[in-house]
């Protein structure tokens, strides 16, 4: 029992550290990639190739003056960014990072918890994340912040619907399981889900952009109209938490997308490779290779997120709503209908 707790605790800390580390280096990579896309050099002064830049940024954030407006609701003002950060970090709990490892005859799963409603948990936690932004924006007692918060919540709620329906279609094709682990394991045996759900993937991807408040859907923090949006009044590390949570969300949604549609830690000809290397199930090398494959996918997704940000201009608010309700929602319903019909014909579902 103690050993189990220690192992889970270590796993929690590792996932926590990886999430924060990836988020920190995403900020650097974002700046670097944006520079490369614009024929610039990007940060290269702090450490070799600018690798210490996240530390410098974090240090700067910590030493900034902490301002809490007089007219704000102090408790909620502090609660907002904390909630955003908390929910961003909580989502990592159900993601299967890599294959199980056998150590001394014990099977260790590389997933903090394999709950059978993993997908539902993800969606639940992500929707609680809206509360953080909403509370933070409202507690600031600032019109810009409030408008940003309203935009954020309406946008996230609108896009969650299309996203949810796209995922329902995915769940139908993977045999009705809500466990992320089983969804990933199924793609090990067969093809990756992208083959069966290309439209679903595009819908999910667009919605993921909107859910993480990334460009071209970054209206909540639209600096041209709303100064800073929901974090107008925030300074110091509380602002840092908001900005950091965005990168963690980006990391987690990349991880979820690779797990849902691209087979997570599986990759083409994985079994052939393992056989050629003489590795057996439960070997730590399989776990490491799988982890590498998973992180390659995640890195590609994060880069594409950034690539899109530095290519596309921001949507207008009515265009955003139109896209969400009048394009993505009908498309996702269509996708769901087609999936149901096809799966019914194949005999995978019955009424």
């Amino acid at each position, binding site marked *: 029992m103690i050993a189990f707790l220690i192992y889970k605790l270590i796993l929690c800390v590792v996932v926590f550290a990886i999430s924060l580390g990836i988020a920190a280096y995403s900020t650097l990579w974002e700046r670097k990639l944006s520079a*490369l*896309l*614009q*024929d*610039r*050099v990007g940060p*290269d002064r702090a450490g070799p190739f600018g690798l210490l830049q996240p530390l410098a940024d974090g240090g700067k954030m910590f030493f900034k003056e902490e301002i809490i407006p007089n007219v704000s609701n102090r408790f909620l003002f502090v609660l907002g960014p904390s909630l955003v950060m908390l929910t961003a970090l909580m989502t990592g709990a159900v993601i299967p990072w890599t294959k199980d490892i056998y150590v001394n005859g014990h099977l260790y799963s590389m997933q903090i918890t394999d709950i059978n409603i993993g997908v539902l948990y993800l969606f639940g936690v992500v929707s609680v994340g809206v509360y953080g932004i909403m509370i933070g924006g409202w507690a600031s007692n600032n019109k810009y912040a409030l408008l940003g918060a309203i935009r954020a919540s309406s946008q996230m709620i609108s896009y969650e619907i299309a996203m949810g329906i796209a995922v329902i279609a995915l769940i139908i094709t993977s045999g009705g399981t809500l466990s992320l682990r089983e969804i990933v394991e199924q793609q090990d045996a067969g093809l990756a889900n992208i083959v069966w759900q290309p439209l679903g993937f*595009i819908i999910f991807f667009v919605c993921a952009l909107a859910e993480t408040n990334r460009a071209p859907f970054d209206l909540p923090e639209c600096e041209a109209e709303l100064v800073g949006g929901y974090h107008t009044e925030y300074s110091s590390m509380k602002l840092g938490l908001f900005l950091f949570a965005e990168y963690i969300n980006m990391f987690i949604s990349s991880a979820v997308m690779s797990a849902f549609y691209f087979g997570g830690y599986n990759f083409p000809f994985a079994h052939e490779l393992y056989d050629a290397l003489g590795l057996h199930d439960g070997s730590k090398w399989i776990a490491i290779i799988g982890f590498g494959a998973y992180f390659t996918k995640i890195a590609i997704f994060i880069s594409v997120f950034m*690539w*899109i940000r*530095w*290519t*596309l201009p921001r949507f207008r608010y009515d265009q955003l709503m139109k896209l969400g309700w009048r394009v993505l929602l009908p498309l996702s319903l269509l996708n769901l209908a087609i999936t149901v019909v096809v799966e019914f014909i194949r005999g995978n579902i019955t009424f």
Partner: protein
Amino acid sequence: MQLTNRSKVVSNKVQTAMEQLYLPGIIKGMLITGSHLFKRRATVKYPEETRPVAPVYRGWHVLKRDENGAERCTACGLCAVACPAEAITMESAERKKGEESLYREEKYAKTYEINMLRCIFCGLCEEACPKEAIFLTDRLVDTEYEREDFVYGKNKLVEKVDKRIDVSKRQTLEVAAFKKLPGLKHNTVWEGKNLNKGKH
């Protein structure tokens, strides 16, 4: 009722089905930005590399010494008169006995200041100088935190005895010949003997 035929039909095209899909357009745009990943950076990482400048670049001035190490400037003030930006000020002083190795002639500049924020680096001071004392060089003026620090005194302008600054690129035979034109009588003091040695 149409009064004139100057009215224009405003283009308000309806999007085609392909355009309404947006995805091809988005991918096209992303390929354009993506292609910039492989283009040459325009950045010059300044302290480590500098942009190449012409050999006759007009930058940070130098007050030259003669071949014995004595300052050439006699504080005549012609440079200050020639300066269109009024960036040059100086105070003159008389040379004392025993200072012959320091100053070339009986009068010298006690202080000599150029305000680098006023200077427009036109090179007219150099042209006006009858003693071949002031030259512009290809050194860039440093950045400073205070405005006062941009007023360069003799400590920054006069060349060091052991670290001579080569101005032979700017002081060519043609330049010397130009300076000897009848209209520029004051320059006949200069004999042009050491022109090719680059030591002035």
